[in-house]
C-alpha cells in the first residue's frame, strides 16, 4: 500500500516511473496532486493533458481523465476539451521544449485567449527524452549534445513570455520548493483564465552531466541557493539579484475568460433569426 496520496491519485500499478534517478519531474507531479487534493476536486472533473517529452509522461501515472497528445499541441487539444466541457478543470503539463519551441505558437495564443487552462511547464533546460539537445530554455553558453561548444542562443523567460502574451496568472516554483508549486497550482486552478506555472526541474542525466552541475542533490541545492522569493527580491539590490531567479506569484490580474465570453455569444444569438 503506497501513501494515501499516491494510492488515490496515481496509477500505482505503473510505478515506479520511467524517469531517471533524481529527476525533479516526479516531485512536481506529486506537488500537482497535492494541490488537487487540497482543493478537494472530484477526480472525474479533472482532465490532465500533455504533449511529448519526459514531462509529458506524467499523465500516464495520474489517475484522472488523461490525454497524451502530439508534440507541442497539448494546449490545442486542451482548448478543445475546455470548450466542449467548460465544467472540467483542465490541467496541461508540458516541457520547456514542448511548450516554447514546437508548441510556441499554441502557447502564446492560449495565453492571449485567456482560456481557463492551468498549464504547468516542467523546465529542465534541455530535451531530455531525445538525448540532451539544447532547448529554447537552455541558458546561454551552456552545453547540450547539439551545442558541444556552448549554446549561443539567448533563452526565453517563460514567465515573462506568458505575461506578455496575456496569461492572467503566472508563477514560478522549483522541484526543491515543491510546496510553492503546490500553492501556485492551487491558485492557478482557482484563477478563471489562463494560468502558467513554471516549475524548474533538474535533469541530472543530460543537462547536469553536460554542464558539470553535479548529481541530483547538487541540482536541488542549486535551486535552493539561487531561488529568491518575490517578497525577498523587493528588498534586494540588482547586484544582489545577479544570477538569481524569482519564485512565487509573478502576476495575478484576472480578465474575462474565453469559454464564458463564447457562451455569452451563444446566449445572445439564441432565438434570433440568423
Amino acid at each position, binding site marked *: 500500500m503506497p501513501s494515501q496520496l499516491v494510492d488515490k491519485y496515481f496509477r500505482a500499478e505503473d510505478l515506479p516511473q520511467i524517469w531517471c534517478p533524481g529527476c525533479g*519531474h516526479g*516531485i512536481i507531479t506529486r506537488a500537482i496532486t497535492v494541490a488537487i487534493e487540497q482543493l478537494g476536486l472530484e477526480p472525474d472533473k479533472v482532465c490532465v493533458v500533455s504533449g511529448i517529452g519526459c514531462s509529458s509522461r506524467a499523465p500516464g501515472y495520474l489517475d484522472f481523465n488523461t490525454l497524451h497528445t502530439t508534440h507541442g499541441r497539448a494546449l490545442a487539444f486542451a482548448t478543445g476539451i475546455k470548450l466542449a466541457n467548460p465544467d472540467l478543470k483542465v490541467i496541461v503539463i508540458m516541457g520547456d521544449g514542448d511548450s516554447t519551441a514546437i508548441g510556441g505558437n499554441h502557447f502564446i495564443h492560449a495565453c492571449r485567449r485567456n482560456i481557463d487552462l492551468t498549464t504547468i511547464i516542467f523546465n529542465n533546460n534541455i530535451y531530455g527524452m531525445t538525448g540532451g539537445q539544447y532547448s529554447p530554455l537552455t541558458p546561454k553558453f551552456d552545453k547540450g549534445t547539439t551545442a558541444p561548444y556552448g549554446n549561443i542562443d539567448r533563452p526565453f523567460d517563460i514567465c515573462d513570455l506568458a505575461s506578455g502574451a496575456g496569461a492572467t496568472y503566472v508563477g514560478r516554483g522549483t522541484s526543491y520548493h*515543491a510546496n510553492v508549486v503546490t500553492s501556485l497550482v492551487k491558485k492557478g486552478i482557482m484563477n478563471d483564465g489562463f494560468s502558467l506555472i513554471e516549475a524548474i526541474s533538474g535533469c541530472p542525466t543530460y543537462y547536469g552531466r553536460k554542464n558539470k552541475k553535479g548529481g541530483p542533490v547538487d541540482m536541488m*541545492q542549486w535551486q535552493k541557493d539561487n531561488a529568491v522569493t518575490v517578497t525577498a527580491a523587493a528588498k534586494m539590490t540588482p547586484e544582489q539579484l545577479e544570477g538569481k531567479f524569482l519564485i512565487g506569484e509573478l502576476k495575478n490580474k484576472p480578465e474575462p475568460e474565453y469559454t464564458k465570453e463564447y457562451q455569452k455569444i451563444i446566449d445572445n444569438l439564441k432565438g434570433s433569426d440568423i
Partner: protein
Amino acid sequence: MKNKSIKGNEVDHGKLIINADWCKGCGICTAFCPTKAIELKNEKVTVVDIDKCTQCGLCELRCPDYAIYVGRKKNEQ
C-alpha cells in the same frame, strides 16, 4: 475495480514507510533530511535511527519516486 496492488517491497518502520523496489537511490531524501535519520546503503534509502525522525515529511515531499513516506503520526496511533 482497478488493480492497485503494488509490486513493491514495502517495509514499515513505524514513523516512516520505505518501498525499496521504487527507490532509485538518487539521495535527495537523505541529503535534505534535517535530522539525518535516513541514509543510502547499496543505493537504497535505509533508516539509520528511527528515533531521530521527527516526521517532518520533507523526504516524502521531495522523493521523486514516492518510495518513502511518513506513517501515521504519533497522535493518530
